[in-house]
């Protein structure tokens, strides 16, 4: 197995919710609450979860776009969590991000060439005279025509705009890319094009991805491993093909069973998970999932489950995953 490009240990990102008159914070939103994981060089790690579970915050924290409260972040073996903005600058070109809404993340007053040049400007090794040539290469990379360099973002469709965003992220020759719901705003046929492009670029340029999405069904098409997040914690990480065929955590099973499948012969789908997503201000103790888990016991209420290694790079946070697995509670009911 190749080395870990990103190695994060027990990171916590809290946002202040309430302050007293003196400015003392009395309540914190615990968006990310103790996440430990590794992203290996050349892999695409998926991150799924419901809205408000902290998956975007985790992605932003790794790129130091969100305030880190505690924990370690290592990029290529170097600790980056303590760096200030200036100290982090040499790392910026190496870590890039693509956002959900391409229209909102492109400056409407700039042409595509200006947008790409702006990204190129943070790479000291590229000469200004090379910008146009480099921009042309980037356009070819994302299957856009070089003559489009002089157009403005509004002249493109949503899928093309997302391609420009990807080109901009690639401009600095990054090693690590975070896609934050990058395909969620697109139609299925366009989404398919963008996902194929992303997979193709990853192979060609040996990139490492963190792919954040709430859509489980696209995970298997692009990711090698998938992490499932719930209420600020990672519940399990498994190889993508194993995760949904044979989930180890009851939450993953619930999430998978809720997806409507585009096949009318499998009608008994969409099993229902009771309860609501917990408040991150005051999350439940023990296992975060216990109030909604059909298999929860007294132990789940009081004891935080430790990560249990299933195999290399795959682990589960559940007290009972072995018993549940043996008894077949997590099997796919649609296949029965």
């Amino acid at each position: 197995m190749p080395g870990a490009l990103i190695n994060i240990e027990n990171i916590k990102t809290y946002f202040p919710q309430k302050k007293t008159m003196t400015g003392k914070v009395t309540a914190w939103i615990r968006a990310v609450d103790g996440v430990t994981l590794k992203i290996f060089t050349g892999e695409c790690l998926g991150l799924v979860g419901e809205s408000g579970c902290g998956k975007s915050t985790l992605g932003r924290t790794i790129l130091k776009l969100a305030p880190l409260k505690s924990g370690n972040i290592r990029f290529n073996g170097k600790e980056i969590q303590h760096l200030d903005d200036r100290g982090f600058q040499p790392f910026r070109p190496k870590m890039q991000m693509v956002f959900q809404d391409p229209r909102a993340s492109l400056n409407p007053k700039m042409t595509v060439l200006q947008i790409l040049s702006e990204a190129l400007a943070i790479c000291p090794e590229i000469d200004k005279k090379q910008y146009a040539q480099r921009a042309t290469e980037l356009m070819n990379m994302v299957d856009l025509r070089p003559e489009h360099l002089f157009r403005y973002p509004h002249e493109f469709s949503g899928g093309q705009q997302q391609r420009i965003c990807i080109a901009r992220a690639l401009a600095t020759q990054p090693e690590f890319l975070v896609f934050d719901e990058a395909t969620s705003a697109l139609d299925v046929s366009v989404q398919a094009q963008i996902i194929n492009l992303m997979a193709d670029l990853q192979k060609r340029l040996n990139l490492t991805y963190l792919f954040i999405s709430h859509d489980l069904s696209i995970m298997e098409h692009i990711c090698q491993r998938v992490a499932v997040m719930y209420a600020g914690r990672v519940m399990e990480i498994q190889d993508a093909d194993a995760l949904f065929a044979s989930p180890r955590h009851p939450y993953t099973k619930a999430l998978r069973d809720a997806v409507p499948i585009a096949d009318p012969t499998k009608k008994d789908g969409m099993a229902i998970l009771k309860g609501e997503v917990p408040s991150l201000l005051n999350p439940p103790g023990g296992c975060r999932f216990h109030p909604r888990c059909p298999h929860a016991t007294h132990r789940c209420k009081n004891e935080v489950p430790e990560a249990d290694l299933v195999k290399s790079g795959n682990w589960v946070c559940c007290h009972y995953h072995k018993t549940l697995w043996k008894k077949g509670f997590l099997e796919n009911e649609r296949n029965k």
Partner: protein
Amino acid sequence: MSSKTQQEPILSVQDLTVSFEGSRGVVRILEGIDFTLYPGEVLALVGETGCGKSVTAKSLLDLIPQLSRQRTGRVSFDGTDLLKLSNRELIRVRGRSIAMIFQNPQSSINPVFTLGEQIFRLIRMYLQDAIDQICKQQNLKQKTAIGLIAKEKLVEVGLTETDRLLKSYAHEVSGGMAQRYKIALALLSSPEILIADEATSALDVTVQAHILKLLKKMSQKTGTAILFITHDLGIAAQICDRVAVMYSGRIVEIGNTMDIFQKPLHPYTRGLLEAVPRLGEKDPLRFISGMIPDLSNPPQGCRFHPRCDHRMAICRTQKPIYKNKNGDHAVACHLYNAKAAG
């Protein structure tokens, strides 16, 4: 479903065309929309962004900007043509006979009134008989009776802690709760038709599963027909009886859910189905090449022909007509007309 076709349709849309006049001339958003809706059925209207699915739903109740729009065709509902009604007459239909729920529940609730105030008002409008009855039977004041009905209706859609909910404002409840509340409001008047415009697209899968099951159950219980507008083919497969596929302002194929998913006829439907990512598959996704046409300058003939793998000479010049228009599975494509002709 032969039993359904024998039934009287509750809504029948014939040759509905909607166009807008803008600075670039007349833009035909919808071109000859034809479909029928039967009592108690769930019909899905699927298609990509900009294909006109929302405009179809909104033009039924004339919720589109009225100054520049032109509509032709016929929308028969309950013996009247909805297109001929004035605004004043339409008010009696909107919400009462044809209710609608929208994509973003929080923004379609009035933020300055509590959820309670809004549901009480509608109960007073629609359920005066029930209020009087409860007042008489249990010797209660009107206000208490309304409160009781409100709680009952909220419990019906699976909401708990109704006391707290009635005192809350829109921003204080979660998306799933807000959408359930909107469904409760929409069903207060026991409408004949419920139009759900991307009603679950903004929600998480687990919440979405709740809402979809609820809608399906409600439609079976009350016989309300649902027109479900969605871009998610999974939803269409799971809860809808029939599916209509739209492309660039036209319905290109309409049929039973089973037929559409297992024997899709139109090349666009096939392309759309192949582009859907599925759990348990790893192959590269297929996609439809090209882009959605510009509606101000749509392609001649079949609007899909520039992107179609099976295009023929006739596709460029002639608009395809529906084959098997009144049957179970209709399709507008020259491939099938040519075959039928020999």
